[in-house]
């Protein structure tokens, strides 16, 4: 899903309650991780889409999040992994809201099943209508952060 603003808004909701700004940054990056990796492989490396199924499956994202967390300093690695994987799962959950005529975009049980799941609530061609809602959520979370005293250090 190319609508990263919606993914940002959805990741900011749990992120607003995190004290550590580094973990918050990792949670948001984790929510972009499935698209950043799959779109980079697709557009830059011309990888056929068949290769990219696991990048929107929990097990594939678990491995990817673990590999990404290893690039973070040792003391922060465990929460980094939790934030990256949590953000990536959030991405999959948001993608599942889309309506792809029942053909889905998230292979939840890959590699045990190639069936893709979706809830079918949002027409992917209509996500432009979500921009005002996303901006409202981002503003609300920024206000909430100030109320909770989680302002940037």
């Amino acid at each position, binding site marked *: 899903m190319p609508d990263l*603003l919606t993914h940002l808004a959805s990741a900011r909701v749990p992120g607003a309650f995190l004290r550590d700004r580094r973990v918050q940054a990792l949670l948001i990056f984790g929510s972009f991780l499935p698209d950043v990796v799959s779109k980079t492989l697709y557009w830059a490396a011309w990888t056929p889409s*068949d290769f990219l199924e696991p990048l929107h499956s929990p097990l594939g994202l678990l491995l990817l999040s673990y590999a990404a967390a290893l690039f973070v300093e040792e003391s922060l690695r465990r929460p980094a992994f939790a934030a990256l994987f949590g953000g990536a799962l959030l991405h999959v959950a948001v993608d599942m809201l889309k309506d792809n*005529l029942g053909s889905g975009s998230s292979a939840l049980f890959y590699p045990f099943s190639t069936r893709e799941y979706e809830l079918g609530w949002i027409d992917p061609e209509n996500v432009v209508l979500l921009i005002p809602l996303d901006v409202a959520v981002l503003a609300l979370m920024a206000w909430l952060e100030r109320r909770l005293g989680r302002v940037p250090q």
Partner: protein
Amino acid sequence: MFRNSFYGWKLGAALALAAAMTATSAWRGESIHPPAWRCLAEPERWHGAELRASGPVLSLDRDGFVILWQQVPLRVLAPSAPAKGEEVEIVGVLERDGPCLRARDWRRFPPRARYRWIWEWVSLLVLALILVNFLRHFAFRPEAVRLKGR
């Protein structure tokens, strides 16, 4: 699991397993998302496969319509039909006779689909801002992941 011991092995194993998953996905993916030319060249092989196709409607007939899918005309059997020239998206099952696609469901692309570029640019802007924010909190030190001699 998160310590520095056996760092290279852990990183290598995670990346190798992820790569193996993508490779097996491509191998199994033939049956999930076969390309148009392959389905139409070998309809016997892909008979019964569920396909997702999209494109402009080229012509209409009594039982359905023909769309241009990945530069290939594809006949679609559907109880209702869009107008000629409309952009549609279809999910259905390929039938070897024809070959044709028996639609399970289809829809027109809404007129606002032409504004797709807006959210693509917004997404790129968001990505750039997030990367800038990320670099405010983290510095990349290549020596941390460089392999050292014993």
